[in-house]
């Protein structure tokens, strides 16, 4: 596909992912929609361009593995899995309900396409190291992607894994770090300073890219570079994102780990999103 058309197609997928996430938020009256809106562009690139998978067979041996380490971002991941055709769209009505396959925090045993039980933060990357070693031992060329939050940079296990991935030369491991600079007690860089974060990963022996995570073209290029790089080292893409992206009144709302959305605002948010898509202003 020609690049401009590809970007437009991914942009439309990102819009749908945002829409699915908002609708799940509306069902539950709450949810980590700010994070979902911020991460939608990366997920759109991943699930409509980068990842190799078969929607009808989520456990297909040849699939690229996508780990959601930050389990509370599940609402975003479910939206992407709907876009990918792995979860039926009408199932979003069950989000967070009793006996749903879509619990508020992502768990592998509940949801097709969910590769790990996240939520206890700092566990995705250590699992990814084991999967990447296992894939290499099996001579399976699939990639392991680990999606994680900036808050998880606080966890020591993240750096145990970072050291190990470089030591073992895991070229089949791509880590995606979402920097929305927001964690439970406030701005991530005020809770435990993580900058200069690109230098840190580089010093640990990783190939590092840092991009605007809400610029689809930049994210797309970063994924392509990470996948095609010949170097025998793990790759990290650091994505600076804005929580609430695509819905201006959420983008500018007092930032908080759990963005407050009033009952009447869900429909307003959806209307704004739809209008921006129609006018082409969403991206």
């Amino acid at each position, binding site marked *: 596909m020609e690049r401009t058309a590809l970007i437009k197609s991914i942009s439309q997928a990102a819009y749908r992912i945002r829409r699915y996430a908002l609708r799940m938020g509306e069902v539950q009256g709450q949810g980590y929609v700010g994070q979902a809106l911020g991460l939608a562009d990366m997920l759109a690139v991943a699930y409509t361009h980068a990842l190799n998978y078969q929607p009808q067979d989520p456990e297909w041996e040849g699939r690229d593995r996508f780990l959601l380490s930050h389990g509370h971002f599940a609402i975003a991941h479910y939206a992407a899995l709907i876009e990918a055709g792995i979860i039926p769209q009408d199932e979003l009505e069950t989000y967070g309900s009793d006996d749903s396959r879509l619990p508020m925090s992502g768990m592998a045993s509940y949801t097709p396409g969910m590769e790990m039980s996240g939520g206890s933060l700092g566990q995705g990357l250590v699992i990814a190291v*084991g999967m990447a*070693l296992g894939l290499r031992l099996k001579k399976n060329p699939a990639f392991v992607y680990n999606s994680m939050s900036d808050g998880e940079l606080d966890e*020591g296990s993240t750096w145990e894994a970072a050291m190990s991935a470089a030591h073992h030369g895991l070229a089949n491991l791509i880590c995606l770090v979402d920097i929305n600079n927001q964690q439970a007690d406030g701005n991530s860089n005020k809770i435990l300073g993580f900058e200069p974060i690109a230098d840190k990963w580089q010093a640990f022996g990783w190939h590092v890219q840092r991009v605007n995570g809400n610029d689809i073209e930049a994210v797309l290029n970063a994924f392509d570079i990470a996948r095609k790089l010949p170097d025998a080292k793990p790759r990290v893409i650091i994505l600076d994102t804005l929580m609430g992206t695509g819905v201006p009144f959420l983008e500018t709302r007092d930032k908080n780990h759990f963005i407050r959305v009033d009952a009447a605002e869900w429909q307003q948010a959806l209307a704004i999103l739809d209008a921006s898509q129609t006018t082409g202003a969403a991206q």
Partner: protein
Amino acid sequence: MSTATKKPRLTTSAMIASIAGEGQRTKAAPFGHALAKLAETRPEIVGMTADLSKYTDLHIFAQAHPDRFFQMGMAEQLLMGAAGGMAKEGFTPFATTYATFASRRAFDFVHQVICEEHLNVKIVCGLPGLTTGYGPSHQATEDVAMFRGIPGLTIVDPCDALDIEQAVPAIAEHKGPVYMRLLRGNVPLVLDEYDYKFELGKAKLLRDGKDVLFISTGLMTMRALETAKALAADQIDVAVLHVPTIKPLDVATILREAGRSGRLVVVAENHTVIGGLGEAVATLLLSNGVTPSFRQMALPDEFLAAGALPTLHDRYGISSAVMATRIKGWLD
């Protein structure tokens, strides 16, 4: 002081020390050899360690199967998480470290990564209970208490080299997570004198007796057997029921043996009195209306001292000499 009266000076027992008594028959590195042999026909078995291959006998496997050995560095959270990742890819990882580090340092990774998904990881750990004189940093006195609380995690505490050798293929065959306490180096060989075979989930009566029933696990089964032999000289007839699988318990066998009337029931374990086999058996018996005279022989609810193992085993009541004396006291 004359040399004739001078006692040998007992020094701190090293982590690599064997727990075998002087003159005791032993077998070298039974875990490492058993795993290396099993892996010859099981290509899905991999070995992983957190800088303790030599101290868990995994180096034997590493030498035999270098392509399937993974050194994860001194990073136990990574070890457990990566072992989970390996299991997700269809392998059967045997992950080794010391019991303190697997339990106290990496607990959440065992709980969430491995057990919540019931992954096929075998966690095999050295220095269980009081098997080093290095003090609480290395003495895993509460590992069983911690791990018993995790749903679906099978817990095994073998007695000797034979038990370990036979447990390795059994736990590899089992689908799901297993925690096994490990004796390493020159490991005592005891159970070959009995009509015994390790079966996962089964308790085995090693000897019968009418006065006392030991319900024991791990190296305390060896001590219970020694104690039983010693007490025979005093016409005290001691039975020993070996319970190598602490979870799930062999409920039927324990209830049957403890339900035979007239015997003092003594649960013996190389673990704190809190949360181990003793409390598990007590709960089982009470819940089923079986109420024999009941005692625990286990480590006290304390941070234990550093020093020489023989000294410490006497001090904390898990040497056969002290055990025999206590039994006689209870029977008086």
